[in-house]
């Protein structure tokens, strides 16, 4: 059974308000584009991690193929824009719907046949790979050559001249992710989802429609990942099948909540922040020595997984639960 790392409703709301205030003020303090870009990437991976967290953290359904949703969202907005001239803001919304629909389709096929645990993980990995191959072969995605979104820097075109515009979009998306997680922790749907995570058979015995709940969770998760994909497409304006559906995105999506704390509201935010800060420190420490920063980063990850089995949120929880005298 997963230890409860939940914050009480009131505390979580206060913490979210704090995050919102810091997030709004942050671009005013960050004078450097490098750090603004750093913040954008942290928030981007938080959103992606939160998408995984909804299904894996709260629902206990570990996916190795979140790239399937991410890539679909990215391609939906890019292809609609490039091939059909559809405004990318509309494309952004449709990307969320596209990610959700792919989530629903994969969920339907997997949960319908009772796939759980490692079988479910492998199936999601396989779906992402199938989509990568299809994107590679299809003409409308640009095939292996990929899709390049034309550079036309206007806010109406979802291409901001200033990075601050991108920052606020991804920040808003991150807040939506936090609110979704909060809702899961405080709603009937979330309670049922967590019941399935703890013991699916017992949940069924109590009358929970496990299939419908899991299907809802994977659709929600897919939609959020799809929105993250659309953001990525607009930020970098280039996509190819490997970038969109490659295993790298799936690994990043699960690493963030695992390090931060699965099944917690703030786990993905903590995980993405720590991973990026550690990555940057490793670069600073190792200087120009090729690849040593990645080795150091890997070692820190291994240590974190070994010593923080419940992630950073788990560590905070452990500190909170310690008797006062022990803490002193």
């Amino acid at each position, binding site marked *: 059974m997963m230890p409860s790392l939940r914050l009480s409703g009131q505390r979580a709301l206060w913490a979210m308000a704090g995050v919102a205030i810091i997030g709004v003020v942050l671009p005013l303090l960050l004078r*450097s*584009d*490098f750090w603004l*870009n*750093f913040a954008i*990437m942290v928030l981007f991976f938080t959103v992606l991690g939160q998408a995984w967290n909804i299904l894996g953290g709260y629902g206990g359904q570990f996916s190795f193929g979140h790239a399937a949703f991410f890539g679909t969202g990215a391609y939906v907005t890019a292809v609609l824009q490039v091939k059909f001239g559809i405004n990318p803001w509309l494309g952004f919304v449709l990307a969320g719907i596209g990610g959700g629909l792919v989530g629903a389709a994969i969920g339907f096929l997997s949960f319908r046949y009772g796939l759980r645990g490692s079988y479910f993980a492998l199936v999601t990995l396989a779906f992402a790979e199938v989509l990568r191959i299809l994107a*590679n072969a299809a003409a409308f995605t640009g*095939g*292996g*050559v*990929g899709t*390049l979104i*034309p*550079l036309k820097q206007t806010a109406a075109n979802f291409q901001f*001249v200033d990075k601050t515009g991108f920052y606020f979009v991804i920040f808003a998306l991150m807040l939506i992710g936090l609110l979704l997680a909060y809702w899961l922790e405080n709603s009937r749907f979330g309670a049922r989802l967590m019941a399935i995570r703890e013991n699916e058979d017992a949940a069924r015995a109590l009358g929970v429609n496990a299939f419908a709940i899991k299907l809802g969770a994977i659709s929600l998760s897919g939609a959020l990942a799809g929105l993250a994909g659309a953001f*990525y497409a607009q930020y*970098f*304006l*280039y996509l*190819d*099948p*490997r*970038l969109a559906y490659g295993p*790298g995105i799936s690994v990043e999506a699960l690493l963030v909540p695992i390090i931060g704390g699965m099944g917690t509201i703030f786990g993905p935010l903590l995980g993405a922040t720590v991973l990026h800060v550690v990555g940057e420190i490793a670069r600073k420490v190792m200087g*120009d020595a*090729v*690849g040593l*920063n*990645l080795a150091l980063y890997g070692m820190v990850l291994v240590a974190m997984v070994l010593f923080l089995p419940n992630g950073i949120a788990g560590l905070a929880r452990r500190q909170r639960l310690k008797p006062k005298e022990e803490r002193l």
Partner: protein
Amino acid sequence: MTERNRSRGIGRRQLLAAGSTAALVAGVGGFPAILKAQAPAIKVGILHPVTGPLAYSGTQARAGATMAIEAINAAGGIKSMGGAKLEAVLGDAQSKPDVGAAEVEKMNEAGVSAIIGPFASGIALATTQAAAKHNIPHIVDVGVVDQVVTRGLANTFRFGPGLAKVVDTAIANLVALNAASATKAKTVMIVHEESAFGSGMAKTLNEQLPQKGFEILETISHPNPTRDFDNIALKIKARKPDLIIPSNYYGEFVLLARTLRQQKVEAKAIYSILGGAASNFRFVNEFEDAAQYIIDCNHWVDPRKPEAAALRKKVEDQKLFFTYEVFLNHECVRLLADALERGKSSKREDITAALTSSSWAGHMMPYGPTKFVNGQNEGAAPVNTQIIGKDIKVIFPAAFADAKPVFPMPARG
């Protein structure tokens, strides 16, 4: 103080006299080198994927760029700017576009005057755009996909030829080689990797080769990485094409060539375009037998220029292979140095202006003087090379050739 000076035999007056004499001598110009302030170093971002799947190419590219910087500094730096030295600010794109873009931001903070890199097209699309925001002139070393220079970014300059130019030249040269041959090649099989590079190439070849009278028997794609080429080789053997056109990265190219050799697949030519290994001395050294007579249309130096031979020796003395990543980056740095010399300024806008009007002819490439039109060096062109013995020879066009083409290649037994 006085006591101590006295004990050493130097009085206060003597000390003052000596001091003022020294100052006078220096002021008059007796020690100009000491007195003159060192011109501030010009920071140059050297951005490549030195880790991840493209690490080999990235490392080679970095080596070429840093060698050029060392050579320029050793020769006195940028003379029109008081001998200002170039200072490399190294960046690792980790073979990912987003990391490449983040590195550009970091380089901007570090105050680079220009950026050179980043080898791969996918990364170049992200880095040129990130650099454009800060008006950093970005010289693209390889990044052959044409969209790199067709987005109207005033800061982007590609020194080498783009994909369309390479493919057009390769097809024109193939037609010319075929016309000059007694036995004509008619049928083709294309084997390509499935990313942007290989797929783009295969698409263009499928459009253009039939117009030139070639029949494409089959186009086979493979993922990266692929380690077993037996089935593909056997398929080629069964269909007996006159020409095999591979389009893949180094590892897959080597494995395909080795398998074709092991399966004793015969053809009139293995004609690659931007072949991953076909113009690579590592391949020639390690698999000489499989590499024999492979023709490539690729970036290469002008073999008649002594600087090219000197650079090759220098590279090989450092136990590196003389590959296109090395010399293209080497020449990109020299192109930048030329712009700095002419522009006499390390300001970004001045470098951009100097590059825009560049007509540099002092390079070691088989190009004319540089002429940038919408960021593309119109003077750039690929050449055809062929592996003959233990060497890579230029066989086409004749103006740069140092060997006659072996076409069709003799049966390899």
